[in-house]
């Protein structure tokens, strides 16, 4: 494997194992969606909590997600209320994070959600460092 291809490979392998585990353990009971404090902010709120989890699974498998599933994935901010609500210890917070990465195209599959990356993000961090730290601190700490 070339050096470039190897970049991030262990992370991707871990994510694939996690997705396999989640798909095998989740029974689509829908409890995670029912307790989610962010669900009502979705552009496509769902009435069927079991179906929406099925849509999230589809995204994890690299298939097209339903509008409801993509809407929920798009508003997940890792509240974590879903974790203790899950009767199967699936870790729905991890499930949703991986679904988000997948839906954004981060795992190499076609993007289903727009990636709204801030083009100034890292330059802004560098700029604030210059505004807040001395030249010596910049050199030694960053």
């Amino acid at each position, binding site marked *: 494997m070339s050096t470039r291809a190897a*970049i991030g490979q262990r992370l991707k392998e871990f994510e694939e194992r996690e997705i396999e585990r989640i798909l095998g353990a989740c029974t689509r009971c829908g409890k995670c969606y029912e307790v989610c404090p962010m669900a009502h902010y979705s552009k496509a709120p769902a009435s069927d909590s079991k179906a929406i989890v099925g849509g999230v699974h589809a995204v994890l498998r690299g298939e097209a997600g339903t509008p409801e599933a993509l809407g929920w994935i*798009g*508003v997940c*901010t*890792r509240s*974590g209320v879903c974790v203790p609500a899950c009767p199967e210890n699936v870790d729905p917070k991890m499930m949703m994070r991986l679904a988000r990465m997948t839906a954004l195209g981060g795992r*190499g599959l076609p993007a289903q959600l727009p990636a709204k*990356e801030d083009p100034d993000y*890292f330059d802004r*961090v560098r700029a604030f460092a210059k505004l807040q730290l001395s030249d010596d601190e910049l050199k030694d700490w960053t």
Partner: protein
Amino acid sequence: MSEQITFWYGCNVLRHGDIIHACLDILRALGYEPAPVGGVDYCCGTVKDANQTAAGGMATRTVGKLNVRAAPVVVWCPSCHSHMHDFMARANDRHFDMTYLVELLHAKRERLATLLVRELPLRVFVHQHIGFNDLVPVNRMVPEILRLIPGVEVVEADYVAPGYMCASFAAIPQALEDIHNNTARSARAAGADAVVTVFHQCYRELVGLDAAGAIPVCNYIHLIARSMGLAYEDEYKAWKRAGEGAATLIGAERIAKVGIQFYERAILPELKKRPKLLNSDPGS
């Protein structure tokens, strides 16, 4: 002899040099010799959900750099801490122990209490989130730390915000607006004089409430620092309050370091941004 540690502060807390400097003084006063590292070259990669190749590369680089330092790592940023726990350490060989700063301060609270000598007569509302609390019980620990400060009273919070902190809400403006309004309303209803944040991301957002005149806002480190007699100026709050006039406070020399065009395009809008408050009277 002081214990050497690496203080991994993260990226976005660089808006708040006073918080970084105060943390270092607090750690030194508790008997540590902290080596601070952070910024873009130590990014955890959590912001790269849309590019896992980049995220993986950043994680491997940062874990490698922290490994080389061969010292326990104390983490400031909740994003870095949770990303290390959830992803970075699962896909890299981590050779260092890691503690979140709140955990360390709580574990050392008896010694910390002896350093908190200045009275701060203040009723504070601690702004809480749900998500990170499972990894580190900050919603219990931070109020317990604050109660060590003479004069500080922590009021009971009847509002816990969704999310794991006030980040990742850029695409969900209504949720952030609700957090602003619910936080201000709950704090005032509880009779609080001020809102105290745990995370810098929340501070960056909620200090807008302060700038809008709704309620004073600070981070818990600010209160510890003030009680210890540390005199770092919260420049970010001053800039935020000044808004358009922040350039005068920052000064031409510092603005020249980042470039006037970049300042006006990428920094000034953040300093001018104010929360949308439901009530027309911001302080009511």
